[in-house]
């Protein structure tokens, strides 16, 4: 029904417009709209960068413009406060990544390559967790950690990230290993390789891209998680970036330059990772979608 109308409309349009120039002008308008959209998306971040070089006086004079001289000392001020948060986040992320990759790669390998009693059950138990957001466990997990006496330690941060990461990691690795041709493993077996040897020499080298993706997802998870560190860490020396920034904001509400410099410093590591490894990042973001793998 609508087909015919639409077709008529297009025919009419292509008749009235000479092709070459209209196509070029359409491309130009496409580009213009896209540039406007990108500018609006990026405006808050550009604002943050511009403001981070200003004093309050410069900020009051002009909002959006860059004003000279640039005040780099804002960054020194911010760095002193932000650095511990960055360090904590890096430690927590690194430990979580090591644990996740270790546990998930072994489990994924075993689940993909061996048949045994309870295999479907274990994998099913992992899949179910994929559907349940960790936030639903916040309250009981807090009490468990409190009873274990782990509040205000790195461990209390590492454990839930590991538990969450292991779930996604096992699924991604299992699916990846299932896709590795059986002949490779058969060949290794003929050469006398044991299961552990096949894990180390066949599966691990091949699955490096997946491992990288999982590592990146973990970094971004640790960097962004908010409620868990908010509840379990009260010692300012142990805060991670997201909660630390909120505290930092409270400390610098009236010093816009250092405030924005701090925000930027806290974002830079993620932005760098994203820029240089965006392929894995995007694979990770989309790989987390149930049903696409």
């Amino acid at each position, binding site marked *: 029904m609508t087909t015919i109308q*639409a077709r008529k409309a297009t025919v009419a349009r292509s008749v009235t417009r000479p092709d070459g120039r209209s196509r070029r002008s359409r491309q130009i308008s496409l580009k213009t709209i896209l540039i406007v959209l990108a500018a609006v998306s990026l405006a808050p971040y550009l604002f943050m960068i511009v403001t981070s070089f200003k004093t309050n006086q410069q900020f009051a004079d002009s*909002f959006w413009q860059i004003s000279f001289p640039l005040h780099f000392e804002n960054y020194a001020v911010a760095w002193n406060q932000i650095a511990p948060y960055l360090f904590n986040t890096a430690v927590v992320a690194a430990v979580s990544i090591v644990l996740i990759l270790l546990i998930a790669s072994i489990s994924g390998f075993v689940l993909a390559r061996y048949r045994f009693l309870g295999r479907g059950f274990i994998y099913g138990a992992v899949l179910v967790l994929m559907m349940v957001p960790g936030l639903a*466990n916040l*309250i009981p997990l807090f009490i468990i950690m409190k009873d274990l006496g782990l509040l205000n330690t790195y461990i209390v941060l590492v*454990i839930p990230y590991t538990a969450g990461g292991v*779930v996604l990691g096992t699924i991604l690795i299992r699916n990846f290993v299932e896709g590795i041709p059986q002949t490779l493993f058969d060949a290794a077996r003929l050469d006398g390789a044991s299961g552990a040897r096949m894990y180390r020499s066949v599966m691990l080298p091949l699955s490096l891209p997946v491992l990288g993706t999982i590592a990146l997802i973990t970094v971004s998870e640790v960097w962004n998680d908010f409620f868990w560190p908010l509840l379990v860490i009260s010692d300012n020396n142990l805060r991670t*970036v997201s909660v630390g920034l909120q505290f930092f904001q409270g400390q610098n509400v009236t010093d816009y330059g250092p405030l924005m410099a701090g925000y930027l410093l*806290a*974002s830079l590591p*993620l932005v760098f990772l994203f820029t240089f490894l965006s392929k894995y990042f995007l694979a990770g973001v989309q790989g987390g979608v149930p049903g696409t793998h």
Partner: protein
Amino acid sequence: MVVTLDAPSRLPSPSADPRKAERTPRKRVVRWWIYLALLPLAIIIGYFAYYPAVSAIFWSFFHWQPAAESTFLGFGNYVTMFNDQIWWLSFRNLGFIFAFAVVSWILPLLAAELLISLRSIRWQFTMRTLLIIPMAFPGVVTALVWGFFYSPNDGVINQTLKALGLGALAQNWTGQNSTALLSLLFVGFPFIAGLPFLIFYSSLQNIPTEVLEAAQLDGVGRFARFWQIDLPLMASQVRILLFLAVVGTLQYGFVAYVLTQGGPDNATMVPILRMINVAFSGGDWGYSAALSTTLFLITIIISAVVVMARKRGSDTTDGGAM
């Protein structure tokens, strides 16, 4: 591949405890090291994912006092929940947040369509990169910068309005009932940098060129192509996105915490914040466990419904909802 211990289908129940296999004598070799290899996984998800969920269900029937004796309440906490105005208000807010999120997909969809229509590959790549850069920034930074935009006195929005001579329109954006929730939702405008955009873009890229060529021969224009080719082919992806939006909405909270703490007058209250407040400010852990259990069950039910619908739908309508 390797020796099969037993075909899973012949087992009485696939959910039998794997460790039982070690104890019961069998003819074939039991590969005990398989279970040893899976032990870390089992421990970590068992103790830190399943056990908390189960203990939340258990304690939700108590007046739970983690440090002292807890008293059994039966369904008392759930009765409290049904009478909790703030809790239901928070779900009304969630409904609004969800509707807003879904409607806001128009922008990523538009961006993806525009992007795919660019002829120059280099332009496509550059614009795509620029559009997704905001994803690289931590969510808290985005929320805090937007909070700075909204702040009543020095806030960028109000100052800009004043500079334009529209000072009368200046508001306490996050501080008054009427605008607080909308202000929160506009954080991250125009919402392009995110999963919906990536999924729209990649599914548009994956439309086979033959289909597009055939359409072109038939004289199908750009808008007709959108309705007749792009949208139907994206149907299954949109279903996934809807599911993710539901789960994401249920977890919505940290932007509200950072910008308004659920206020003013609970106008931006969401379930997660309510749950945390009840436990950490109110000290009512059992009630909080009941709220947590409710959220957990809602998520599980929605997931199950979606998985079922996908299974049924994939036979008939996958990609062909024309």
